[in-house]
């Protein structure tokens, strides 16, 4: 059987192979587009709802009409902003995220400098302990941390949300790696010129490790902006201090909630992160890849 078949297509090999190649390419793109729809459909629909003129009649569940709004408006954004005083929550998000980013960069850079550049008793032990926090199971830490914050009088404050999150192995490790890459001669030269260690850190080390600082800052920013569970817990007694991520869900839980406004509010929350992601996409992916190597 195979003999017969092999004989015949001798001349036809090249076009049939070409066809198969094209076929495979088409299949590849079809699969990729299907996955793409799965990944981004929720955003597209939310976007469609957010810009739909709700006074044009119809509900968000009129398919497929609701996916292609006939009357486009930006009024939903204005409405949700005013009705739910979204400005307050946006400010809360900015405050929590800003404090977290600044705190993380500061604490990580300070801790990483001696770990990378000095010999002192206990250094290796401290470094090991910090790295160990990556694998320690923390299933009960959030309970005790709430009790601690309560004792410190920090429950219901932005500082209470931020403080427990800023000292992390990831940031310290990242900055230490960056500092290790800076030539020792540069530091020696500065010392001969009489520079203090803090000056060396701020004038030499930090400017030279800007890419790492930026990466850490962006990672922290996206994480803090999106965080839900921890801020919700810490600020449960102070609803006015909640960030957008918590407030949006509270809106959704309201009895007479308006999906058009919720969609608009959700997009307001998403846009900053999306912009940061698009701008720093390569950094993101490379940062992730760094985790494997």
């Amino acid at each position: 059987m195979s003999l017969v078949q092999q004989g015949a297509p001798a001349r036809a090999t090249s076009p049939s192979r070409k066809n198969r190649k094209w076929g495979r390419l088409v299949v590849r793109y079809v699969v990729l587009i299907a996955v793409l729809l799965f990944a981004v459909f929720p955003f597209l629909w939310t976007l469609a709802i957010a810009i739909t003129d709700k006074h044009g009649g119809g509900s968000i569940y009129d398919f497929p009409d609701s996916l292609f709004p006939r009357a486009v408006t930006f009024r939903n954004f204005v409405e949700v902003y005013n009705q739910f005083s979204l400005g307050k929550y946006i400010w809360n998000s900015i405050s929590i995220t800003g404090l977290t980013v600044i705190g993380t960069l500061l604490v990580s850079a300070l801790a990483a400098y001696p770990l990378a550049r000095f010999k002192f008793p206990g250094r290796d032990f401290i470094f090991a302990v910090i790295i160990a926090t990556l694998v320690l199971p923390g299933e009960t830490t959030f309970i005790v941390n709430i009790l601690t914050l309560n004792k410190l009088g920090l429950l219901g404050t932005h500082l209470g949300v931020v403080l427990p999150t800023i000292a992390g192995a990831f940031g310290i490790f990242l900055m230490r790696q960056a500092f290790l890459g800076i030539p020792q001669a540069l530091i020696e030269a500065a010392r001969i010129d009489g520079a203090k260690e803090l000056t060396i850190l701020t004038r030499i080390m930090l400017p030279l490790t800007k890419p790492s600082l930026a990466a850490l800052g962006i990672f922290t920013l996206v994480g803090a902006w999106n965080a839900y569970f921890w801020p919700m817990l810490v600020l449960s007694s102070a609803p006015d201090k909640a960030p957008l991520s918590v407030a949006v869900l509270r809106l959704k839980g309201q009895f007479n909630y308006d999906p058009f406004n919720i969609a608009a509010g959700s997009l307001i929350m998403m846009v900053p992160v999306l912009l940061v992601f698009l701008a720093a996409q390569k950094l993101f992916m490379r940062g992730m890849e760094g985790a494997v190597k």
Partner: protein
Amino acid sequence: MTVSQRPKAPAKAKYSLRDTLMSYAFLAPALILLALFTFYPLAYGSYLGFTEYGGARFGQGLPPKWIGLDNFRTLIADPLFLKSMVNSVKYLIIVPVLQLASLAVAVLVNKNLPGMAFFRAAYYVPVVTSISLAAVMWDWIYNKDGTLNWILTNAHLIAKDSTFGWLNNELTAFWAVMLVTFWRGFGYYMVLYLAGLQGIPEELEEAAVLDGANAWKRFWSITVPLMKPTILLCSLLSTIAALRVLEEVLVLTNGGPLNSTYTALMYVYSKAFQGFNFDYGLASAAGLVVAAVALLLSIINFRVFRDDTGGGK
């Protein structure tokens, strides 16, 4: 032991006092915060697991009272805890599915074809999405009148009059929540696998093509073996993540309907902070059980994926 080239010479370590003081001053903020918010809660939380503590908000009632293993006995007798643990173990079904899908997608976007950079970035967007936004969007999709039912009825997979809310149905809610976890996770693992794939030398692939190996064979005999360290890392990460699922459950179903989506950490959270019990002792004990299972699964993962050729990292 008589190694001559030891650059550090720790026998006579000369530490300068100035360097030591300066180092500890720089490390102080990190160390204080880690001690207060990571190590102290680990130790104190473990201790609380063996005490009766709570009853009042933030534990402002009686001090913790040592009761030995009583909390663990209570847990074993609590059907909700057992259900939570079973659900958490059941959640692990996501691990192989998620890993295979991410690896497959990574292989698909790894070729230098037009548009690949766009696909990679788009697949990563769910990863940088807040869980609250995911909750808002998926709530609409899963609604009785939502997109999922629209697709299914139009594909004639279910009848129009038998649609239901996927998150309100005891049989489907658990899987619906899991799909959201999948949605938020596959871009993350895809990028990790992509990094691993790009480390595979091209000559190997080319040689295999010359030897007549088809794509499938190349995948199993070149890609998979060389990707073992990455597969280990990813499966370890996703095992632990699956066991620690809490936010999805909290925002999508709050454990319902009929407790069908309760996971182990949801149980820990609800015992400590929901309702009026504030049972920090019992919640801590449950947390310890989850931690122990997480540790066990990590060890199993390492055993299964250990590189027995000796060439791994």
